């Protein structure tokens, strides 16, 4: 076990954030490159329509318009793509073009691109484009689609079906096990489509240099190396000639993890024109073009014995995708998580889970913070509470009796997840203490006498973090699970860290600097970070699946240890003392108990300019690189929600929220806690407010921020956080990911709290968001 000196594990402030506080963030849209043109897109107004003809001539005549291209023109330099995983041979999709050709498959799909001197001119020209549309029937509701309504021919004729993927998990002999159940509690769940709504919308600036056929793409993305590989492949360029640079990113949440048709069309336009082209998605088009997530209709049940023992779960999940499976990660990851993680915190041996992922004439579905884990948690925790209520067992006690026990239960869950040493019991006990569970229950009882309806809900969860190469590498997809870090001792004694990890605002930069500073005895301002440039940084995965600081930080720590050892070797020779008498602190290598020391500036100076002074028998390079290949770490935690229901109006107010989480070592509690809080707010948004509302023609009804409601600080409760620390072995860092934990459990805890309050009225809700109208319907106050 590695010992840290003190900066790691403390809530040091984020010096990197000062830039933003001073208004000096530099986002892709802030870049000024001479001669840049601005792209705007004509998007399909229909969910499904044939394009009989497109006339771009009038648009081209607008002064300031440089070019306008339709799908065929863009296809001349950009290949179509199909999301496929070697590990999921049954998953099928169709080739997706950069711009719709012949047929548009969702409202919002780009159909033509206009490139102009300004965005405003481009928008003027859009109004002049003539398209002859022939509207077609959109696919019906996913449930109807899943049962293969014969009236609806397959969206992609060659596939012969609208089911893109089907998967069944059967574990623990469900038939026999469930036959022994005293009760089976069933529910129908409806999870509604959401989207990520990052503050900074998707932005890309592509600059093609025709002489050398080099493409530089400045992009607000979580995954620079993934994008480099994709641009090279689809645009027919050598990967060495593609460079992706990531300026500051104003939030991402999974939205900036995928290939977008409009973004690669911008790169294609830059190639066709030989000029830099920029595209900034506006909020309206973001709603119909950013990935969506979480559209699931689920029938699920839990089987229990009268003594409260949970025997198993059954899940039938119909998951809606978009018109294509999103590239390159596919859209089905969410459904796979939903079915494989149902019941994950519990020892119940039996699971029968079925997933059907169906095409829809709607925006593509992709990985959004939590990726299916909130669905699994929502189903499981609702059923556990429902069972507890039927059996008259306290919900906390119900969980206590059924949690998996480390070292006793098999190391794998029924869903096949390696979750051997999780701390569910400890998290629960800590949570009950933190929230004063008994006190709250008493408060709820006295409030009810006074006519107030409080509800308490608990939700335990697991979180898959830092997955290994099995996820994408083995699937034949060019996404690194690994990350690397290069540390360079500068002549000044400052250390430059070149990392493959990317920061979207979550502060992983600060964590990285903390780790390096701690290992090398340097203050924050003695460490410089370089990130987000494929020409410079080691190939890395980027940010997803709560991996940024876990994998990137592990690489930084490994590199820091290597550099430390090297500096000690050199100093030991120069100072003529034993290696183990030396430590790094206060920007120097110094004798632990003596007066001799060499500052990092002195060492840096010699390692760059006076190699003649260095001992020849030790490694003298001022640069070290360290790569880390993770194998997947499963974290866990538990949340609780206290709400007040107004049964007359159907309005529900979150009053307080608690999280106890176990990610092993917490590198910076402030960063970790804010990740949890932000995640909880997103989860409460799902539970209360957020939904992409489509009508029966698959038209998005609420594509503005006035109608798609995101949670605001003033409506959010206090969120109290604590940590349980289970030692993580096998890594230097000893930390698991934490980025999605808040989102995974928050909605489930909230809905359980609401259902706790609704129980007094003999009803329950299993559809989110819990709008006042849905609550009133559950209460049978409105039809």
């Amino acid at each position, binding site marked *: 076990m590695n010992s840290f000196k003190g900066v790691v594990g403390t809530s040091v402030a984020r010096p990197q954030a000062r830039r933003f506080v001073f208004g000096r963030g530099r986002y892709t849209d802030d870049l000024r490159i001479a001669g840049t043109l601005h792209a705007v897109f004509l998007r399909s107004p229909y969910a499904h329509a044939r394009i009989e003809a497109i006339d771009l001539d009038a648009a081209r005549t607008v002064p300031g318009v440089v070019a306008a291209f339709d799908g065929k023109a863009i296809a001349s330099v950009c290949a179509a793509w199909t999301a496929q995983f070697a590990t999921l041979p049954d998953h099928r999709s169709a080739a997706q073009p950069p711009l719709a050709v012949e047929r548009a498959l969702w409202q919002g799909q780009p159909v033509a691109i206009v490139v102009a001197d*300004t*965005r*405003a001119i481009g*928008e*003027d020209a859009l*109004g002049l484009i003539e398209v002859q549309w022939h509207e077609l029937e959109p696919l019906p509701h996913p449930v109807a689609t899943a049962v293969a309504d014969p009236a609806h021919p397959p969206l992609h004729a060659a596939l012969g079906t609208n089911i893109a993927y089907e998967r069944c998990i059967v574990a623990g002999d469900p038939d026999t096990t469930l036959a022994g159940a005293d009760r089976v509690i069933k529910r129908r769940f409806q999870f509604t489509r959401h989207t990520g709504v990052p503050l900074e919308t998707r932005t890309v600036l592509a600059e093609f240099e025709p002489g050398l056929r080099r493409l530089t793409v400045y992009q607000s993305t979580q995954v620079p190396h993934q994008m480099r590989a994709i641009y090279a492949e689809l645009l027919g360029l050598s990967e060495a000639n593609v460079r992706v640079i990531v300026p500051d990113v104003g939030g991402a949440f999974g939205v900036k993890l995928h290939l977008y048709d409009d973004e690669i069309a911008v790169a294609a336009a830059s190639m066709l024109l030989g000029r830099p082209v920029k595209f900034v998605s*506006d909020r*309206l088009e973001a709603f119909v073009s950013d990935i969506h997530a979480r559209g699931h209709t689920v029938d699920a049940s839990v089987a229990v014995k009268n003594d409260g023992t949970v025997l198993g779960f059954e899940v039938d999940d119909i998951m809606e995708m978009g018109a294509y499976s999103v590239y390159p990660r596919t859209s089905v990851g969410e459904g796979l998580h939903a079915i494989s993680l149902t019941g994950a915190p519990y020892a119940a041996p039996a699971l029968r889970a079925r997933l059907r992922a169906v095409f829809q004439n709607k925006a593509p579905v992709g990985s959004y913070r939590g990726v299916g884990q909130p669905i699994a948690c929502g189903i499981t925790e609702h059923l556990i509470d429902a069972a507890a209520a039927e059996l008259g067992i306290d919900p906390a006690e119900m969980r206590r009796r059924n949690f998996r026990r480390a070292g006793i239960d098999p190391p794998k869950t029924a869903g096949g997840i390696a979750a051997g040493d999780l701390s569910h019991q400890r998290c629960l006990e800590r949570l009950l203490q933190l929230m004063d569970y008994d006190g709250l229950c008493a408060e709820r009882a006295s409030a009810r006498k006074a006519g107030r309806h409080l509800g308490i809900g608990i939700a335990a969860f697991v979180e898959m973090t830092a997955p290994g190469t099995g996820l994408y590498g083995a699937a034949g997809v060019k996404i690194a699970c690994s990350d690397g870090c290069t540390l360079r001792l500068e002549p000044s004694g400052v250390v430059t860290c070149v990392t493959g990890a990317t920061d979207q605002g979550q502060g992983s930069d600060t964590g990285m600097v903390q780790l390096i500073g701690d290992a090398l005895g340097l203050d924050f301002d003695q460490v410089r970070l370089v990130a987000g440039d494929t020409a410079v940084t080691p190939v890395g995965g980027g940010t997803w699946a709560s991996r940024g600081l876990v994998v990137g930080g592990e690489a930084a720590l490994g590199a820091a240890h290597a550099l430390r050892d090297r500096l000690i070797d050199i100093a030991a020779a120069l100072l003529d003392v034993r290696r183990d008498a030396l430590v790094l602190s206060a920007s120097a290598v110094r004798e632990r108990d003596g007066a001799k020391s060499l500052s990092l500036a002195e060492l840096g100076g010699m390692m760059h300019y006076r190699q003649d002074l260095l001992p020849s028998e030790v490694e003298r390079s001022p640069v070290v690189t360290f790569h880390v290949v993770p194998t997947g770490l499963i974290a866990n935690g538990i949340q609780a929600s206290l709400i007040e229901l107004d049964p*007359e*109006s*159907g*309005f529900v107010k979150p009053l307080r929220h608690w999280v106890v989480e176990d990610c092993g070592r917490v590198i910076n509690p402030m960063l970790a806690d804010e990740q949890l809080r932000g995640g909880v707010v997103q989860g409460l948004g799902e539970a209360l*407010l957020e939904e992409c*509302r489509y009508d029966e023609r698959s038209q998005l*009804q*609420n594509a503005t921020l*006035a*109608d798609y*409601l995101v*949670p*605001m600080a*003033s*409506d959010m409760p206090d969120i109290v956080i604590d940590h349980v620390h289970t030692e993580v072995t096998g890594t230097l860092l000893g930390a698991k990911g934490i980025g999605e934990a808040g989102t995974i459990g928050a909605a489930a805890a909230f809905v359980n709290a609401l259902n706790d309050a609704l129980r007094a009225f003999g009803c329950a809700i299993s559809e989110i968001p819990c*709008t*006042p*109208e849905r609550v*009133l319907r559950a209460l049978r*106050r*409105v*039809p």
Partner: protein
Amino acid sequence: MKFAPFDYVCTRSLAEVYDLIEARGPDARILAGGQSLLTTLALRLSEPSVLLDIGGLQELRFIEERNGAIHVGALTRHCELETSPLIAARLPLIAQAMPHVAHAAIRNRGTIGGSLSLADPAAELPACMLALDAAIVLASRDGERRVRAEAFFKGLYHTDVRPGELLVRVEITPLEKEWRFHFAEFSRRRGDYAMVGLAAAARGPGPLPEELRLAFLGCGDRPVRAREAERVASGSASAPRAERYSALRRALEKDLEPQSDPNASSETRMHLAAVLADRAIEALSG
């Protein structure tokens, strides 16, 4: 989204505004606080040829008492109404309603003239004008005319403002001492336009209201005085809650025609309106 091109004139006097309205015809649009207009331009929902910015006309920005009535200039900002001691003392219903109007940043710029001219059926100020029986003063080159609030709001985003006219102020005669006021609304998030809201006033020397005014927002294509419910409510103030709710609900079915939209069905709005009315009576009964 970017605006379509338009001309912009920063006007210096009302006379200039009247001239320009005449010269530029129906394509000219008044720009006050811009909080609603600029959004519609960015969405390209309308493409006026010229914006006449009246923001600098100080003569339209005042809150004063004249001959026993409170006069509020059209350019008075929401934040000024919200914090005015005169409004708090003499028109407490408005003071109660203002915190519900949008968010602080929008209240810093939005104006009463803009809000009333826009006539969003879910806006707070129009309903308050109804409950307080305000006079809306419209001016043109030919002089002024006064329109009672109930006649001013004619439909969805539709008012009695005629071509060539400007809303210059509202005049409200405060109700006497015996009146009490109550404002409440249901909105999904603080600061959003309400799903349903109610501006209520009740008169009565004793604890039970003898006369009631119930002006609803979000329950139709304009703010609505619920006369039937007002009548029923005055009689059922002391009835048990469930009974009173049912009586109010029946009356409101006659008064209101709430629309269904994706946020709430007409039934839900009707139910919420009855809940608000019931709670208002509870609150207004001393």
